[in-house]
């Protein structure tokens, strides 16, 4: 594969891969975005959970402290009540054993109060409680002392006892109030903890749900991306297969193109036609070997110059530029005759075609001239024309004398001849006529071949032309007692033709029909209209054309039976000339072999208003 085709294929592949990479990048960006979002949300939730858990821990500590405070308050109350009860028992019974709880309280209560004070901190209720407990302690000590001093029946003891009872009630109320306060606080803390816990649960749940959702979406996206990627890969594989097929096809085409190019190059260099490529200014771009031979300049010399500096004669530069302009405008000029100069300055006559040289954009960027050297041919043609003209004149001149003299002698104008002399004169006269026809036919044939046979076309009635031709040949037919019958259904059928040339055709057909028909038969001439034009036919009753000769009937000097034809005086050119004339007039001629005889038929197009113009265009 050439570099160019390889690049083309590679570019196709690159296009598809870039499509895939674009899809992957998009998918990757989406995944990164989702991951960042998940991370941020998780960070936010974790931060919030952390703060909440910190708060929960704090609340837990405070709850524990509150519980401990309640317990401590309960212990203090229990201790004070036990102290009160112990003193009552002592006061009622007077037994020392009842004072054990009292004594225990006396020893443990300061520690309990101290512990309670530490738990409560700077609290006004605690300070009041401490004051009241101290006062109660003082009351209890006073009662104990009074009992021990005055006995349990001392009247003033009642007052002390009442005062102590009231103090006890106050302590009891205060401690219960404080417990209640702590219990309320504890409940508040628990409520707050429950709320925070719920929030944590909600946050974690939300996070889990969100992450699950994100995972789900990611999984879905990944799945879809995977499916899309698989589709893309399948598409890519299909495209790759197509591209490989195209590449192979391209390579095959490229190989063929390369081979064709080499064949063209070989042909270009060795074809016996001088080929010259030029740009729009006339600079020579390519110059084949035949050009080198024809003009004498090497390719290297030619490619350094223009056609105006090398081959175009100065007098023809304007004409050459005009032809180039036409080719650059897209016209193809053909069958031109140019005169060019070779390196020695000799003039060469060329038969040339000039066509546009198309660029990559399919627009003319220069010209291609294809030229054949016809210098020798033209010289030969000139010689031939001179020869034909000379022969024509030199043959006609003695023939004129012979024909005229024989005519006068045969007619008896210069004296009476014997029968044998008359017979010999008739033979001489007949062969003179044959020689005249032969010369005329040869000259006509030469003119047909050189394209110089002149036609004076007019709008004419074909029936009249045929009728005149029949009359011209009637004398010849009468010699053999042959009748000529004309059948023409329409009397005024017009064609655009040269009547003299049509008569020439009819004379050929009629004279052939007469010559090849047996005596006393009838030759039928028919003129009729058909869709495509006028049909004229001449039907003889001769032996027919031998099968082996049928393909050569219209060839020059074709004679089915030379011995017989010579007897009939034919030249072998009549049908060939007739065919050329009919075809020149836009018609055609053919023959049909009948059961008895042969029918020659020719067709001509009808004359129309534009026949003259069309004829001139066709001829040009």
């Amino acid at each position, binding site marked *: 594969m050439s570099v160019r085709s390889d690049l083309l294929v590679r570019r196709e592949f690159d296009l598809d891969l870039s499509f895939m990479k674009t899809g992957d990048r998009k998918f990757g960006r989406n995944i990164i975005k989702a991951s960042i979002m998940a991370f941020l949300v998780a960070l936010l939730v974790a931060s919030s959970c952390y703060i909440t858990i910190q708060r929960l821990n704090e609340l837990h500590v405070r709850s524990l402290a509150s519980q401990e405070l309640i317990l401590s308050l309960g212990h203090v109350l229990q201790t004070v009540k036990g102290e009160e009860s112990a003193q009552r028992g002592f006061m009622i019974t007077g037994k020392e054993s009842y004072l054990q709880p009292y004594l225990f309280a006396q020893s443990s209560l300061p520690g309990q109060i101290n512990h309670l004070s530490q738990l409560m901190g700077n609290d006004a209720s605690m300070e009041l409680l401490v004051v009241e407990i101290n006062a109660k302690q003082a009351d209890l000590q006073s009662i104990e002392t009074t009992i021990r001093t005055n006995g349990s029946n001392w009247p003033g003891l009642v007052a002390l006892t009442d005062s102590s009872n009231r103090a006890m009630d106050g302590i009891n109320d205060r401690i219960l109030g404080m417990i209640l306060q702590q219990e309320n606080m504890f409940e508040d803390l628990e409520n707050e903890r429950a709320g925070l816990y719920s929030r944590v649960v909600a946050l974690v749940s939300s996070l889990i749900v969100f992450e699950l959702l994100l995972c789900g979406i990611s999984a879905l996206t990944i799945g879809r991306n995977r499916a899309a990627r698989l589709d893309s890969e399948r598409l890519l594989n299909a495209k790759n297969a197509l591209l490989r097929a195209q590449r192979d096809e391209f390579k095959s085409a490229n190989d063929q193109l390369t081979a064709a190019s080499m064949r063209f190059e070989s042909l270009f260099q060795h074809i016996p036609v001088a080929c010259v490529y030029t740009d729009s200014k006339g600079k020579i771009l390519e110059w084949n070997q035949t050009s080198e031979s024809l003009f004498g300049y090497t390719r290297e010399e030619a490619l350094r110059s223009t056609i105006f500096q090398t081959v175009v004669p100065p007098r023809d530069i304007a004409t050459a530029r005009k032809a180039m302009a036409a080719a650059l405008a897209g016209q193809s000029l053909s069958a031109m005759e140019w005169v060019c100069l070779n390196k020695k300055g000799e003039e060469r006559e060329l038969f040339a075609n000039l066509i546009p040289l198309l660029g990559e954009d399919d627009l003319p960027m220069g010209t291609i001239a294809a030229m054949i050297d016809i210098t020798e041919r033209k010289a030969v043609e000139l010689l031939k024309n001179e020869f034909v003209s000379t022969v024509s004149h030199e043959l006609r001149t003695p023939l*004129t004398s*012979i024909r005229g003299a024989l005519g006068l002698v045969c007619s008896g104008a210069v004296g009476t001849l014997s029968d044998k002399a008359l017979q010999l004169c008739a033979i001489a006269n007949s062969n003179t006529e044959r020689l005249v026809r032969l010369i005329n036919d040869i000259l006509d044939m030469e003119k047909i071949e050189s394209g110089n046979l002149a036609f004076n076309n007019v709008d004419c009635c074909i029936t009249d032309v045929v009728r005149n031709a029949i009359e011209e040949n009637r004398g010849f037919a009468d010699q053999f007692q042959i009748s000529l019958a004309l059948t023409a259904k329409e009397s005024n059928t017009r064609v655009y033709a040269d009547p003299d040339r049509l008569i020439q055709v009819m004379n050929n057909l009629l004279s052939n029909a007469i010559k090849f028909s047996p005596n006393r038969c009838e030759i039928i001439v028919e003129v009729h209209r058909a869709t495509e034009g006028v049909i004229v036919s001449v039907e003889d009753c001769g032996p027919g054309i031998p099968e082996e000769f049928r393909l050569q009937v219209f060839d020059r000097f074709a004679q089915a039976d030379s011995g017989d034809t010579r007897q009939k005086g034919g030249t072998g050119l009549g049908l060939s000339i007739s065919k050329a004339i009919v075809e020149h007039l836009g018609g055609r001629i053919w023959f049909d072999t009948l059961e008895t005889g042969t029918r020659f038929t020719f067709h001509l197009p009808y004359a129309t208003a534009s026949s003259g113009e069309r004829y001139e265009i066709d001829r040009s």
Partner: protein
Amino acid sequence: MRLTGLKRVYIVDDEEDIRTVACMALELIGGFVVGQAASGEQALAEAAAFGPDLILLDVMMPGMDGPASLKLMLADPDLSHIPVIFMTGMVQPQEVAAFLAMGASAVIAKPFEAMKLAAQLHEIWNRSL
């Protein structure tokens, strides 16, 4: 306009045999009085003295050819009124048209038919009346 019939014919041809045959044909068959010249120069010099009603002029002649002779005849007051017929083998339509354009009255093809030559001249003469 010619008021008289065709009686005197003048033949100009470099070929003596042709002149002889044509003279005999015109005299014997047509009954004309026939004069002749072997060249264009001779015709220009002598034709007026012969006083022809019609001149038969060959085209291809050495020296002064037919067309050159016709040109001078048309320029000659003594000959310009006499119809001139070219007698030639050059009878292609464009050649005939060219001869007629030069001023010839008609063209007769060579080789002519001696027995019909007189009749042809009569026909041309009558047609141009």
